[in-house]
């Protein structure tokens, strides 16, 4: 069949194509409704007409439930719940569709993240309705699996087994993030517990010692949007949100996105953030260890291990990498360092504040933040000192003092108590860095001590393994180092034993 050239224009072609497709589209609605067990409705029953916002809220009772730990959120959500209730009532009245006994085939979603991310939608009988890959690795895993209509435990076993076969789940990358979301929180938690128990049993029979990090997820629009925007599972998004709620990780969500599931689980477990059932510990053998991190930090501070008190080392995140956050008190000063977990390099150094206890993570975080924010002015102060030939006393109006430790004149970081008092006559009570009482404490503890950092600029790029050499230069400290190394070795053995347990 041929047509006149003038008759065949773009509009006709597109219209003809659309008509042909519409004409040939089969009507399979009834068979679909039957297959999905959707009850038929009369043809004239209107589709619900309440406003879209109310309608969405009405069907999101989980979102409307109050988080009792946060009063402000509770108030907002309480309002949302009222709106939802009203919307539900409107639907019942005008839509002719009751919310009571409204049950769909999808009852809960079970997320499994290793690096492959997979979400299984299950029904009330815990049978898998569908399996969806969250990323390419997940697609790869699912491509050869037939898990629909299987019991969720059996399906999870099969998914995890495939992840082991494909090399995603190994001795060193042994973490499984298990996340469950459901409209019924109690049932959702029960399902999470059951799957976690089952997975642990299954993996224990394998060669891998797993770390299963279970969580019950209370999803909301914001979380959905975050997960969707970044192409990650709801479970991963939930864990990142929990981590970024941590005081010292506040506002680091973007940085946390750069971490692997294993690293996120490591942080989550280190901070006991699991909202479900967890087993095992993530493998950390590739990291320098807490002792290695402490050694690096002590070297940067120019101190021996014996001088450090209230030592606190925990995992943290900086610029998308796992770091050890090391804090300790020494000589009436607080020291805080971020040490790269893989290389042992000191990433954030020169954190020295007099008169704050390293036992308080908030104190450390505040101190570090103060130092970062004052870095410029401190550098300026230092330049002023050099220009004026002063003995090293700083003249910061706030009383905060610090030193990069990498300049040509490492010298003194903080002035002694008298200097600070003299330079900060308007200091207010409660100011941790300039308070007179604090200063008196410092004097009482060690009258002539100063918060100092050595000049380690030539070793800044060194690894942790060669940092022992830089801790002290005098013979006494060398002996101390030997003793310390032995002790550290013992500590490391203890840590390994603890990890194994």
């Amino acid at each position, binding site marked *: 069949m041929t047509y006149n050239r003038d008759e*065949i224009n773009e509009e006709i072609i*597109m219209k003809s194509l659309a008509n042909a497709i519409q004409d040939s*589209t089969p009507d*399979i609605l009834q068979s679909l409704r039957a297959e999905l067990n959707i009850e038929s409705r009369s043809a004239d029953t209107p*589709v619900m007409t309440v406003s879209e916002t109310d309608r969405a809220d009405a069907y999101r009772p989980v979102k409307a439930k109050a988080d009792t730990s946060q009063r402000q959120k509770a108030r907002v959500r309480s309002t949302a719940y009222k709106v939802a209730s009203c919307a539900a009532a409107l639907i019942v009245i005008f839509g002719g569709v009751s919310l009571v006994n409204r049950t769909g085939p999808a009852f809960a979603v079970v997320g499994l993240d290793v690096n492959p991310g997979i979400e299984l939608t299950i029904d009330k009988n815990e049978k898998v309705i569908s399996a969806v890959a969250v990323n390419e690795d997940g697609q790869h895993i699912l491509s050869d699996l037939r898990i629909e209509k299987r019991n969720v435990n059996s399906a999870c076993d099969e998914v995890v087994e495939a992840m082991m076969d494909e090399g995603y789940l190994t001795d060193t990358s042994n973490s499984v993030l298990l996340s469950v979301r459901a409209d019924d929180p109690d049932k959702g938690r029960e399902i999470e517990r059951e799957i976690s128990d089952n997975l642990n049993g299954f993996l224990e029979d394998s060669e891998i010692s797993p770390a299963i990090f279970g969580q019950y997820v209370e999803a909301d629009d914001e979380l*959905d949007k975050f997960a969707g925007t970044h192409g990650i599972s709801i479970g991963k998004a939930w864990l990142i949100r929990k981590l970024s709620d941590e005081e010292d990780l506040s506002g680091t969500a973007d940085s946390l996105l750069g971490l692997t599931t294993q690293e996120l689980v490591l942080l989550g477990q280190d901070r006991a953030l699991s909202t479900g059932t967890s087993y095992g510990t993530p493998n950390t053998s590739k990291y320098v260890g807490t002792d290695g991190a402490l050694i690096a930090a002590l070297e940067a501070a120019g101190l021996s291990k014996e001088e450090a008190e209230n030592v606190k080392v925990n995992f943290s995140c900086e610029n998308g990498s796992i770091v050890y956050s090391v804090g300790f008190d020494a000589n009436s000063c607080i020291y805080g360092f971020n040490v790269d977990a893989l290389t042992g390099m000191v990433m954030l150094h020169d954190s020295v504040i007099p008169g704050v206890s390293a036992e308080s993570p908030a104190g450390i975080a505040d101190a570090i933040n103060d130092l970062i924010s004052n870095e410029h002015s401190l550098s300026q102060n230092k330049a002023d000192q050099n220009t004026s030939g002063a003995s090293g006393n700083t003249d910061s109006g706030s009383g905060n003092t610090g030193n990069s430790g990498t300049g040509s004149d490492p010298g003194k970081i903080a002035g002694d108590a008298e200097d600070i008092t003299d330079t900060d006559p308007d200091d207010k009570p409660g100011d941790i860095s300039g308070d007179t009482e604090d200063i008196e404490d410092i004097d009482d503890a060690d009258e002539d001590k100063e918060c100092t950092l050595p000049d380690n600029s030539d070793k800044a790029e060194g690894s942790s393994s060669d940092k022992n050499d830089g801790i002290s230069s005098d013979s006494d400290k060398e002996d101390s180092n030997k003793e310390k190394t032995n002790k550290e070795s013992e500590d490391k053995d203890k840590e390994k034993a603890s990890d194994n347990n």
Partner: protein
Amino acid sequence: MHAADLDENLIILMAQGDGDAFTEFYNQTASIVYGFALSILRNKQDAEDVMHDAFIKAYTSAVTYRPMGKPIAWLLTIVKNLCYNRIRSGRIFEDIDDYQDAAVSETQDQDTVTDRAVLQQALKILDADERQIVTLYSVSGLKHREIAEIMEMPMGTVLSKYNRALAKMRKELTGDGDRNRKGVKK
């Protein structure tokens, strides 16, 4: 119906097992789903199978849907994945369906015959990208920019493929294509 206007809340309601929302969702998208599947698979039986699977999947996976303002993109991704899974697994018919068979011609009016001839030519002479682009453009009402986003292609590429497809179809439908082919053979 303009596919970009597809109500996102229908999916949210479907996640709660709302059958009415599913019906509405089906009515608004059935032709788009079928047409898109047909444009990839070029066989009506395969397209119908995928259409069936796509709606089942959309309903059962609605709970995992993350509102981002593009529900049609979500649905078409499901369709595309199902089509490619089917192609990969070899579960497809090889032959292009004849939409101009005698039975159809006898029972339909001239417009319908013309429409089907156009569809037949589109399936026959266009390459995969061109088929998907012209199908989405004609049946869904999506704009080239929106199609470019869904197909993850630069808009310029979509436009040039669309224009090339139109030129090919015009040529074929007016007989120029046949004449050219005959000329080559000679």
